[in-house]
């Protein structure tokens, strides 16, 4: 009996600790001296610190408090704060991967069209604007940054395989994904030791799917994975590349993947603008070996965020004024120079800030031009609530094929089954 008693005590202690850790904090209110206190919640590196100071200096009645969390925690906290009806900030940043889930409950957010967002609509490319529009037509967010897609490639490995190394010629090698696979076959035929053509299926599948008009959902939030040929098409195109033996079979974000950048285990990888910093970090000695060409199909985006104003905010007008200012082209240019977050406002794409921007690590590639071109022509694909989890299910299927666990048809069937359970 004594043991049982101790057991219960231990269990209770564990529950206590877990319970205490779950306590949260409150949102913004009127501060000292009648100032309007605005709380803004972001994650990772938004590069806003100097901008807050500048804004407060220009608007003495506003006091800004910044709340920065890790991306995963940030979005979970927002969900909890929205569900319990308290605790959210006046402005909450939302990442693209989560926007579908949150905008399926537009009543929790201010419709920014009511606050005057229509006047600045033309700042953004159409797809960026539409991505944060809910099914009922409410606009819940203003775009901050984007992650245009390009193709990063190792020019040293291309030279070994007898392929062109100049980035303009490389871009011409793959106007389409079919041409990309054909180039891969040439690369594989050259048998460069310990090196495959691309890293793994995840990014390729996402890039191909992103180039179609309709993705995983129709605009009524119905899942169309089975009926939309574009989804199976993206799956099949990726399988084709896997079956041609072009993959290094390395999972994205794994330690092997990180080492692969350095050791040249793969010669190409579809990379969004923010991945440049990641590659530089992983492969410090490989400067000048990596270069950047256009993405097959010409357009693509992966990532980017929005500033939203939850209904809980007591100062939606002031919050909107701040969000509008933070996402204006001038401020986005400052953020880009400071933190490298690629701007979402298309007016900047013709300004020297972007057009003159080259990256010395990537053999002085004109990355500003390359990434802005891929973003400007992006299709306005509708993102539904569970898009992230559905993509995971399909990517898991691709990886099962890559690892030889299943044939393509079985993998697809299992993925479709999983999708049904997710929705």
């Amino acid at each position, binding site marked *: 009996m004594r043991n049982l008693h101790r057991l219960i005590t231990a269990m209770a202690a564990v529950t*206590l600790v877990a*319970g*205490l850790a779950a306590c949260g904090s409150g949102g913004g209110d009127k501060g000292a001296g009648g100032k309007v206190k605005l709380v803004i919640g972001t994650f990772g590196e938004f590069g806003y610190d100097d901008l807050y100071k500048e804004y407060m200096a220009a608007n003495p009645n506003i006091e800004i408090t910044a709340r920065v969390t890790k991306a995963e925690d940030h979005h979970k906290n927002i969900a909890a704060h929205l569900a319990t009806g308290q605790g959210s900030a006046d402005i909450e940043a939302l990442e693209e991967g989560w926007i579908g889930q949150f905008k*399926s*409950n537009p009543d929790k957010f201010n419709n920014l069209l009511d606050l005057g967002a229509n006047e600045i609509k033309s700042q953004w490319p159409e797809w960026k604007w539409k991505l944060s529009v809910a099914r009922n037509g409410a606009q819940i967010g203003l775009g901050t940054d984007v992650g245009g897609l390009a193709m990063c490639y190792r020019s040293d490995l291309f030279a070994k395989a007898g392929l062109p190394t100049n980035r303009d010629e490389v871009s011409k090698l793959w106007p389409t994904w079919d041409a990309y696979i054909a180039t891969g076959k040439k690369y594989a035929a050259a048998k460069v030791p310990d090196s495959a053509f691309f890293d793994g299926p995840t990014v390729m599948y996402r890039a191909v799917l992103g180039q179609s008009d309709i993705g995983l959902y129709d605009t009524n939030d119905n899942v169309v994975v089975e009926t939309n040929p574009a989804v199976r098409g993206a799956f099949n195109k990726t399988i084709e590349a896997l079956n041609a033996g072009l993959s290094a079979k390395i999972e994205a974000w*794994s330690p092997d993947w990180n080492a692969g950048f350095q050791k040249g285990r793969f010669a190409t990888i579809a990379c969004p603008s923010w991945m440049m910093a990641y590659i530089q970090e992983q492969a410090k000695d490989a400067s000048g070996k990596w270069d950047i060409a256009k993405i097959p199909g010409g357009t693509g985006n992966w990532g980017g965020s929005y500033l939203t104003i939850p209904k809980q905010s007591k100062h939606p007008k002031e919050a909107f004024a701040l969000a509008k200012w933070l996402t204006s082209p001038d401020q986005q240019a400052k953020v880009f120079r400071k933190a490298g977050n690629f701007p979402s406002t298309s007016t900047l794409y013709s300004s020297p800030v972007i057009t003159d921007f080259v990256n010395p690590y990537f053999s002085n590639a004109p990355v500003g031009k390359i990434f802005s071109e891929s973003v400007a022509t992006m299709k306005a694909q509708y993102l539904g609530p569970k898009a992230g989890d559905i993509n995971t299910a399909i990517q898991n299927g691709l990886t099962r094929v890559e690892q030889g666990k299943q044939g393509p048809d079985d993998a697809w069937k299992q993925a479709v089954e999983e999708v049904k359970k997710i929705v």
Partner: protein
Amino acid sequence: MRNALHRFDVKASPYFYISPFFILFGLLGLFPLLYTGWVSLHDWDLLEDTHPFIGLENYAELVKDSRFWNALVNTVSIWVLSTVPQLILALLLAHVLNSRLRGETFWRTGLLLPNITSVVAVAIIFGQLFSRDYGIVNWLLGLFGAGHIDWDAGTATSHVAISVMVIWRWTGYNALIYLAAMQAVPDSLHEAATIDGASSLQRLLRITIPSIRPTIIFTVIISTIGGLQILAEPLLFGGGSFTGGNDRQFQTLALFLYENGFSLFKFGYASATAWLMFLLIAIVGAINFSIIRLIRRA
């Protein structure tokens, strides 16, 4: 009157003294537990405003869900693979430390180091050790002529890798508990056995283990509870993926709960999972308990 007050004081005071614990436990332990039960009877999406009552439908769906049974099998497999070696190793370690050694405190503190290391750091390091192309484990196996193993791709291999992580973290902790119990075993018993020519192993098996049996049972129960709730290791081993591998090959029950609750926002379904987990742990605990009573009687 004074007499009555005095009697009240004597009878009631102890309950007041212990009440803070039970009030806190009620608020932060019991209430969430019961509320989770209530939530599990609803179709409860975290962000929706209405949560229709659906009775036991979540449970009915859950027992038909192959993902749930898959997670259960994985959990039990990882639990066995981690608990058994962990407790045996802990016993041996404690036995070694119980004999005279130079720098006792150093070794004993060392035992606890893995346990106070953040689980995130442990998972990241082990993720690298067990990586396919450049991992140390595969490199070592390669020295003996074994091929490269893709640890997280296979069911058995991923379970082994995760179990190693758990073993590394908890062996020292259990060894310290055993050590404390072993020091209470009278020296005279060991001395007498030594004089009679018993070896170290014989003393461990014949004297130490029978004497510390209650402690061993305690650690078995505690690591059972811990093992059935394992979450951080498989989550981080899979690089933060909720599905526990591309075929759910190392998704544990807790991870399945986490996926439903915090990725899909299906709180009703996740709560039903939590309750089934609770029942499962209670059943295993009861089995443990009756086995112990059988052993005691024997």
